């Protein structure tokens, strides 16, 4: 009788320990909802296309552009420096591979915004606070950067700098996207995220 009782207490203690264990299962949101929602609705989780253009022109290594569109769309139009992770793949695989480097700001974009917004909440919910979106996606990039025009007689220094950044980023975009298919494929293959490379091992 005594053994049975002790065994029951042991089992119950075990169940108590299990109940107290944190839910650290891979890919479950760790943030609190009431903290996450206001955070993702703030403006400072977004970058404008002009800011992204500046990162590209400066070859800033502290940011990583992540294109969440399909591979076909990525092949057709690619922003220089972007890597391709189609959105369905992004949510299914371990995000540590892509977002693990905390010194890099990851900027998501798609054709417009929706998938990038999902990815933003998903990544931040999982604890990757280095995640951002590019406002308006590639549609906004085309409108603002590629179709930029200066009209008028006078231009301020600030406007001139902005115009120059857009022009240079636009040139880089055109150069990349006008590569012959064979070269472009090679280049884009090299831009695919590789877990091996991130591990630092030799292939």
């Amino acid at each position, binding site marked *: 009788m005594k053994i049975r009782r002790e065994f029951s207490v042991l089992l119950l203690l075990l169940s108590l320990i299990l109940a107290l264990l944190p839910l650290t299962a891979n890919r479950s949101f760790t943030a609190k909802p009431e903290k996450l929602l206001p955070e993702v609705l703030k403006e400072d989780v977004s970058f404008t296309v002009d800011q992204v253009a500046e990162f590209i022109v400066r070859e800033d290594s502290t940011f990583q552009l992540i294109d969440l569109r399909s591979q076909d769309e990525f092949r057709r139009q690619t922003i220089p420096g972007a890597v391709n992770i189609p*959105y369905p793949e992004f949510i299914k695989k371990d995000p540590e591979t892509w977002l693990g480097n905390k010194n890099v700001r990851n900027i998501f974009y798609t054709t417009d915004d929706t998938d990038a*917004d999902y990815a933003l909440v998903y990544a931040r*919910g999982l604890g990757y606070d280095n995640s951002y979106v590019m406002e308006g996606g590639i549609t906004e990039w085309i409108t603002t950067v590629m179709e930029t025009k200066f009209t008028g007689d006078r231009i301020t220094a600030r406007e001139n700098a902005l115009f120059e950044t857009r022009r240079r980023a636009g040139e880089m975009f055109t150069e990349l996207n006008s590569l012959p298919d064979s070269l472009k494929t090679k280049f884009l293959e090299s831009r695919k995220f590789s877990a091996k490379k991130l591990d630092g091992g030799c292939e």
Partner: protein
Amino acid sequence: MKFLKQYWLILSITLLAVILVMVRTYSHNFRYDAVRWAEPSALRSNILTEDQIPAMSSDILLITLGNDTPAIKQTQDKILKLNPESVLEKANLSLIRKNKGPVILFSDDNSVSARVWMVLSEMGIKNIFILQGQRKNELP
């Protein structure tokens, strides 16, 4: 009474464990398995157009986020106008959870409804959709 005295320790531990499990299961935190709750967004099954609404069951709760007024026929049973930040307030969350039919989010800025959708979905709220609005840059 004798039984209670004999097993008070076991019973109290069991009760404590049950309370802890209940609190963790039904608290307003996020649910286990983020991929499962995010999947409708990858399949696009969480996106609705205005034409699909009449075919849906009754008890629709339409939530308009922000000050934008939806340019849709307001034939829905219930319409709730909220600031996106206040969606998680106790009263609002309770309304969303208790609604028997589909919950539809609307905002003229699709980004807002997409972000709110992901948060609510990861909290375990099923049957929640986004009404695809006119994009900001398409507005006249």
